[in-house]
Structures are given as C-alpha cells and as structure tokens.
C-alpha cells in the first residue's frame, strides 16, 4: 500500500513537474508580455502543486528523502510522467496545444481526486482546481484564437494538435499502482475520464474550426519510465545543481 501510494503520487506529480519545467523555460521569450506572464504563472502553479505532492510522497517514503531529492535526483527511467508533457516548446501553437490537451485531463482528474479517501491528496486536489481551471480557460482560449485566427495560425495549430494527438491516449493508461489505489478508494480511475475528455477536447477543437485527428495510433511509455529523447536534455538542466552540488541546502 505504502509503495503503491508513493508511486501513485509520483504518477500525478511528475506530469506537473515536467510541464512546469517546459513552461518555465519560456519565461521572457513568449509572443507578448501578457502571454509571458500567463505561462510563467502556469509554471508557478504547477511547481506549487508539485511541492505539495512530493512533500507528501517524501513523508510516505519515510526514508529521509526530501521533495527536492524526489524531484531532482531520480534516474530518467524513474520519472513516470506521460510523454505528452515532455514534448518540446516547438512554437506557441505546440505549447498551447500541449497545455490544453493536458489541462482538460488535469481538471477532470482533480475533480475526481477531490473525492479521494486520502485526505492529503483530496486537499491538494481541492486547492489546485481553481488554478487548473484557469489554465484550461487560458489554453482553450488560445486554441480558439489560433485555430480560428489567421490561415497561418490555423495551420500551425492544426499541425500541433495532429502531432500531439498521439500522446493523449496514454493519459488514460493505468499502472499497477493506479489499479491498486483505485481499489483502495484513493486513486482516480482514469479510464472513466476518457470519454468526457475527448468530448470536451473535441468541442473546443470544433469551436476553433480545427479538425479532430482521426489517427488511431498512439504513443505510450512515459508511465513506465520510457521517455522520448527530449526528456534526457530536460533532466540534464533540471538536475544540474542537485547533481553538481550534492547534499547542500539552498
């Protein structure tokens, strides 16, 4: 139970960690000051949530590791985020498409996680919902603006959605730990979110005049720690200080 709970928490938190890292690296480089502020804010929210989750995970692990050890001192194969969130900031369309495809899932997940028997997880979820609702509003708005903006922006957003679509199905895969936690009334049965997810996503895409991708081929592996080649470089930076200066206080 303890081990499964620990794994279950990482399964949620790692997504926010890696997406937060991606969004944080855009700071100062966005298409406008307003989007810069919003993207930094999303990153900030995600890292805030990450801290709560990892602090709890550290307590559950009970082996002296801290939130930072968990965030920054695992091997690549031990990160269990979905492949979606590690995809690069190719352009603003990709950034917003990635955000949107994650936000819809994230909000559905937190809504259910609020009902968890685990009071810490339920509290973190409740606290995060408002933030994530804002993320989803922001990213949905941009899906619409870019999808229904100019021909160029439409094309770029369609490309981004088409490319990232292959990473959506993995959101609804269950690991062994997930299954155990669902049984215990702690975890969310993500398989049950799938239908609503695609319904909500498709509504926004339609409003944005975008085609809903038809491909039935999906990528997976993140939840088992098998990442895309983008992940290693992201981790090199994320872990740099902790690896270079081990066992220090900052």
């Amino acid at each position: 139970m303890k081990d499964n709970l620990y794994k279950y928490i990482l399964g949620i938190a790692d997504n926010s960690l890696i997406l937060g890292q991606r969004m944080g690296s855009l700071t100062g480089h966005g298409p406008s000051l307003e989007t810069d502020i919003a993207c930094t804010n999303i990153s900030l929210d995600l890292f805030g949530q990450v801290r709560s989750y990892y602090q709890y995970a550290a307590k559950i692990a009970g082996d002296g590791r801290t939130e930072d050890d968990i965030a920054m001192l695992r091997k690549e194969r031990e990160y269990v985020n979905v492949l979606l969130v590690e995809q690069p900031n190719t352009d603003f369309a990709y950034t917003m498409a990635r955000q949107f495809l994650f936000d819809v899932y994230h909000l559905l997940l937190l809504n259910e996680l609020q009902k968890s028997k685990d009071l810490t997880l339920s509290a973190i979820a409740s606290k995060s919902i408002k933030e994530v609702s804002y993320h989803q509003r922001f990213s949905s708005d941009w899906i619409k603006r870019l999808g229904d903006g100019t021909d160029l922006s439409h094309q770029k957003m369609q490309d981004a959605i088409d490319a990232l679509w292959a990473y959506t199905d993995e959101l609804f895969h269950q690991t062994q730990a997930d299954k155990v936690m669902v049984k215990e009334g702690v975890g969310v049965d993500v398989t049950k979110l799938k239908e609503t997810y695609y319904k909500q996503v498709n509504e926004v895409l339609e409003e944005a005049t975008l085609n809903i991708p038809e491909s039935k081929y999906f990528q997976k592996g993140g939840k088992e720690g098998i990442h895309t080649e983008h992940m290693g470089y992201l981790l090199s930076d994320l872990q740099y200080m902790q690896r270079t200066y081990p066992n220090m206080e900052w």
Partner: protein
Amino acid sequence: MSEEQIKNLEAQFEARIARDEKIEAKDWMPEKYRQTHIRQMSQHAHSEIVGMLPEGNWITRAPSLRRKVALLAKVQDEAGHGLYLYSACETLGISRDELYDQLHSGKAKYSSIFNYPTVTWADMGAIGWLVDGAAIINQVPLCNTSYGPYARAMVRVCKEESFHQRQGYEIMIKLANGTPEQKEMAQDALNRWWWPSLMMLGPTDAESIHTEQSMKWKLKRKSNDELRQQFIDQTVPQADLIGLTIPDPDLKWNEEKGSYDFGEINWDEFWQVVKGHGPCNKERMNARVGAWERGEWVRDAAMAYAEKQQQKKEKQVV
C-alpha cells in the same frame, strides 16, 4: 495658443508641481515633460523586461523547488512591472508597439546591468540583493514623483522590489552559511556584481545630463553620487554580516564624513556597456527581438480572432 498663454500654462504647471500636486494624463503638460517621462518610464519598463532574461536563465536549473517557485514568481513580478510601466507610459500618448520598436531598434536604452551574464546560481542572490537593492534606491523617491500614473506604478513596484531584495539577500545568507563551495560561489557572485551595481546608479554627477530639470519635476531627488553613497553605506554592513568581502581594496569607513570611501569605478567599462558592447548586449537584444518576431503570427491571429468575434456580435445585434 500665443506664446504668452503657453508661458502662463507653464507657470501654472510648475506651480502645481511645486505644491506637490500630481499631474494626470489628461492635464496640460509641456512637451518636454511628456518626452522626458516617456523616455524615463519606457527605459524603466524595458529594464524590467530585459531584466527577466538573466534571471530566466536559471529557472530550469534552480537548485530546489522552493527556489524555483520563488524565482518564477520574481520574474513574473518583473513582467508585471513592465506591464504597469508600459501602461503608465501609454497614458502619455505613445503605443506599446512604438515603445517596443524603440527598444528593438536600439533607440531606447535599458539598464546596463542586465548586459552581464548570470554565471552561477549565486548570481540569483547577488542580483536580488545588489541589483534590486540599487534599483530601490533609485526608485523609492519616484513614488512621490510628479506624474501621477508613474508615481502610482512605482508604489507597487517598490513594494515588490523590496521583497525581491530581501529574497536575494536571503539566498546569499544561505550560501554564505553553507559549504565552502557555496560560500565561494557567493563571494564570486559578489565580486562580479559589485562594480556593475555601483555603475547602475549612473555616471558621476559631473557627467550626468538631465539632472537639474529632473530634480524640478521630482523625477530625481538626489544626485547619482549621493544615491551611490547611500547604496554603499547600506550594503557594506550587509556583506560584513554574512562574512562576504566587498571586492574593493580602497573601501574603508570614513569616520569624519560618516560614510564609506571607495575605489575608482571603471567608467570605460560603463560606457562600453552603455554603448552596446557589454558581455550580453547582443544576446539580450537577440532574445527580445527574436521573441517579438517569432510571436508576430500569434499576435496577428489574436487580432484576427478578436475581429471575427466582434463581427459575430455585431451580426447578432442586427
């Protein structure tokens, strides 16, 4: 208007300022007042925006989650400051696009300090402690400046800056009390940022232009040299307190004048950086111009979308 009428308006205007009344956007003001304010406020706004870059450089590599969150929040605050300051500037009848254009073409300046690279994590401490520290000394008096929108923006900016300054100092405390490697990192950052921070307070009074007029309009209340002395006197004890050494062999307490004597500033370096040849001038401008150009299609799309939505609404009304 006749020359006399203008003189009259000018006299009234100066009298209002002398009475510490705030000038507002809709009020009459001399063209030079408007231009000087546009120059100073936009320079300040640009500094906030360019200033996001050296700190943004460490977001992905912050050593702990707590520090990462604080750094993100700080950089976000800077973007926010940029936003208020641009807005305040726009009240004077210049558009944000024009202001950006001045920055991107090199016509407008920004604080030279941001043309130095952030080489180690300790630079996040040094920037907060020294750069924000010097900025506050420059800026606090502006909370009472004559132009209302600027003064109000500065109240908010200063409050946040002093939070940042404490946060930066706190990073330095932690490093200075840490392992020998950390202490060395802190000292190294102080060594690199000390002199540029002194330069931040501007050229010596002898070299400084605009000062007299700026004093009258309360855009400036003390001379650069006075502000520099204040900064030094405030900062040296803070360094002493955490066991770091100011990298100035000539620095010593002058009992008589009740303040520190200090060594010669390398003004050649100052002017080289101001003129665009500092270590990172090119990188900073490339980053800003690059972001702006890469973002063009996004801004165009947002505009097109807004127009479409507007048309839809109008149709519905019909």
